[in-house]
């Protein structure tokens, strides 16, 4: 399988008077053609900054550190000019964000917003772009697309707004779609529709997708592979099924145990003690050690490395060296 997007040692930092915040701290992964990679993490894990970094959408005082490598079809995105980057964004790599209401322009008809994106990348007339916008709205399941093309965002429900965002992201046939919490602001019944739509569209177009979510269930629904993010780093990645059935990292394990499941009552939930650490001051050694029930001295002082990005099932944990330490 061809690797479309290759990320190596991505580091994104934010600097202010109080010091350096290492929001993303050495992330590496590959995204192959047609594949859906799920990235799971809690708030503060760095997953959204990571997504923005992939398209170099990081503004001052944030910066992607030298040494970070992002390659799209072998082209080094870190070396591109702003104009070249704009051609990649939208045309090659599309994005969908959590809050469609905030991403759409409230005073422009949705059809105009879709057409704008199309015309920024393709040599089409206004009329042709509009026709294409109607077709796209139909493809993302907006009912009566010839009418909705003239609607303003506030006239549409949250679910329809997110369909419009998806239409914009798909408008120039990108090969990669980055979806950051695309269903988090939606009700669960609408979320199910949007997930079905995403699965259908990405499959039909053989699009590679990065799906970012705090919700393991959402990621499990779509992803072929899943990476778990904690403390600005990936701590585990594996084929989706394997991650759920045979997790290697104690954080993944604990996250699976802590999540309440429909139909699986009840009694006490296996809570993870403590709280998510802050990027301003990551714990020493393994970043999960203060909350890990297996942690020993080595975990407090020595930071485990993530095995190479191409490893089939990788985890950043000393237990892999010393499995006898795993307490039951």
């Amino acid at each position, binding site marked *: 399988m061809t690797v479309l997007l290759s990320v190596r040692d991505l580091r994104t930092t934010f600097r202010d008077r109080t010091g350096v915040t290492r929001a993303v701290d050495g992330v590496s992964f590959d995204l192959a053609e047609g594949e859906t990679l799920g990235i799971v993490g*809690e*708030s503060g894990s760095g997953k959204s900054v990571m997504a923005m970094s992939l398209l170099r959408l990081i503004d001052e005082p944030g910066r992607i550190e030298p040494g970070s490598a992002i390659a799209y079809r072998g082209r080094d995105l870190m070396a591109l000019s702003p104009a070249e980057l704009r051609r990649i964004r939208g045309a090659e790599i599309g994005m969908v964000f959590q809050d469609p209401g905030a991403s759409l322009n409230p005073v422009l008809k949705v059809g105009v917003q879709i057409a704008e994106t199309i015309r920024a990348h393709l040599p089409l007339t206004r009329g042709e772009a509009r026709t294409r916008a109607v077709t796209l709205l139909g493809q993302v399941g907006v009912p009566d697309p010839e009418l909705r093309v003239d609607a303003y965002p506030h006239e549409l429900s949250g679910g329809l707004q997110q369909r419009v965002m998806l239409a914009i992201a798909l408008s120039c046939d990108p090969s990669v779609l980055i979806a950051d919490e695309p269903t988090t602001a939606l*009700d*669960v*019944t609408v*979320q*199910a529709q949007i*997930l079905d739509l995403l699965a259908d569209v990405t499959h039909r177009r053989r699009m590679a997708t990065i799906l970012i979510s*705090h*919700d*393991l*269930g*959402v990621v*499990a*629904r779509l992803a072929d592979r899943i990476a778990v993010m904690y403390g600005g780093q990936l701590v585990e990645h594996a084929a989706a*099924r394997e991650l*759920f*059935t045979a997790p290697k990292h104690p954080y993944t394990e*604990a*996250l*699976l145990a*802590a*999540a*309440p*499941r*429909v*139909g*699986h*009552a*009840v009694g*006490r*939930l*296996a*809570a*993870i*003690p403590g*709280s*998510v650490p802050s990027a301003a001051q990551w714990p020493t050694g393994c970043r999960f050690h203060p*909350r890990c029930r297996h942690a020993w001295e080595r975990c407090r002082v020595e930071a485990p490395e993530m095995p190479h990005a191409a490893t089939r099932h990788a985890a950043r944990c000393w237990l892999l060296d010393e499995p006898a330490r795993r307490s039951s």
Partner: protein
Amino acid sequence: MSDVPLIQIERISKMFRSGGGLFGRSRALEAVRDVSLTIARGETLGLVGESGSGKTTLGRILLRLLEPTSGRVRFDGQDVFALDRAALRGLRRRMQIVFQDAAGSLNPRMRVGRAVREPLLVHRMYRGAAADTRVAELFAEVGLSDDLLDKYPHQLSGGQRQRVGIARALSVRPEFLVLDEPVSALDVSVQAQVLNLLADLRERHGLTYLFIAHDLAVVQHLAERVAVMYQGRIVELGPRDEIFARPQHPYTVQLLESVPPLDPWMGAT
């Protein structure tokens, strides 16, 4: 203890007028339509619905934070909307609310220790050193270390702030708590801590809960009975296990099927 349910909701409806402005025609929105429910003493009723279903409005009406358009709420047999000011103050102590967004419901300029102490003073329950002792006791009870007493809300994590919200609600020894999406803003790993805490507190103090949430899996952990709300109406009500195993109303079925299973490979739905 009497056999009378602690909470009796009788045919509550609530209409909001919306729109209008200067020249527009106003529309009536029926947020709650003819809802009747009871909650027994010591019971946890889960109220599940999506945004706009009316679940939050109903919770506010129970606490007399909103007036219904019609219908009646009885708390321990007393008609909540027929009470005079003195009786209402007594009632307010007995029923409290925990909000989704503890950050938004705490005064950002008040140290959290004082925020927990405040209701004690309002209800003239403790003064001076006795109030300090009570606050320390409450912090311990909800699992907050007492070096957090002098912090401001923004210096705490989301989970810690929610614990402060719970301590504040508990401070006046209520019998009934409306929990309005109490864990929705929290990360999964912290959600479980707070759900376990709510279960412990219920047991220790014999509390009665109305647990409002959009998330079925979360409600399931605490509720003995579940009411499903859709477009202002209760469309299904029953024991938790019945609702989850044999949902009757098509909307409940749809709601249950919409939740992406955590692990589709083990058939865990």
